[in-house]
């Protein structure tokens, strides 16, 4: 039953991607009938083939729709942070003043997906780059281009992202 649910979720995910790819192919409406049938069949096959690998642990949390809404909302703060990051990098490229180092902090995230979201956000935002994530403790090792504190709190490094990640994926 549980495996079937995972397969179905994977198939739906694949179907969404397929439908996006084949938008406007129909002679009526957006999708033609043959596209829909073919997409459904292919999604089922893909779900059966790679469902075992996708969403291995705690993935069911993402089945809640409000998390997807949060993910979409998250784009806003992320974009602002990215803009800041780029101006920051531009400044550093021009002036060349850097004070790099690798720091450790523990954002207390448990699921893989949350850690992934946080790590990618960190990589995309000002002056930080995830170098390693501990498998056991969940601690992040971050290359920080402008070290102000040897053992910082998560907020110093990446602001409110851990909270966002927790809200989205835990």
């Amino acid at each position, binding site marked *: 039953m549980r495996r079937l649910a995972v397969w179905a979720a994977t198939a739906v995910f694949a179907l969404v991607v397929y439908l996006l790819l084949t938008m406007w*192919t129909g002679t009526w409406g957006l999708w033609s009938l043959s596209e829909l049938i073919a997409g459904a069949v292919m999604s089922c096959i893909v779900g059966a083939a790679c469902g075992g690998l996708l969403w291995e642990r705690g993935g069911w949390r993402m089945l809640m729709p409000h998390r997807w809404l949060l993910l979409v909302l998250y784009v806003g703060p992320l974009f602002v942070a*990215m803009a800041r990051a780029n101006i920051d990098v531009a400044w550093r490229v021009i002036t060349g003043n850097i004070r790099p*180092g*690798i720091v450790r902090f523990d954002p207390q995230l448990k699921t893989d997906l949350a850690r992934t979201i946080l790590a*990618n956000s960190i990589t995309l935002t000002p002056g930080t780059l995830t170098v390693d994530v501990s498998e056991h403790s969940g601690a992040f090792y971050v290359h920080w*281009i402008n070290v102000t504190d040897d053992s910082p709190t998560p907020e110093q490094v990446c602001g409110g992202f851990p909270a966002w990640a927790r809200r989205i994926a835990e």
Partner: protein
Amino acid sequence: MNALIYILLAVGALFNGLGALALLRFPDVYTRIHGATKCTTFGSIFSIVGVVVYGFSQGGGEGGTLAVHALLALFFLLLTNPTGSHALARGAYRGGIKPAQAVVDRLEKGKR
């Protein structure tokens, strides 16, 4: 509409250029990854959004397909780019490349 697309393209090119420049100017691998990843991703967002705006302004099946496919490309780019950089940084660190001019290196003490 045209002006908007011009601006988006210009900003995209600017940030991409910044990324390439960062690749050339920064002293070691990690800082280069910083520059390259952030700037090229950000610049690509602008460039591709320019194309998306163009596509939607064209309208119809053709323009819509262009926009949606470009958005998909952007989505995959956003998903893969930071992950690839993270993998490279991790690989470089485990491969024995120490960060240059580092003031602190917690990973060395932490776990190896």
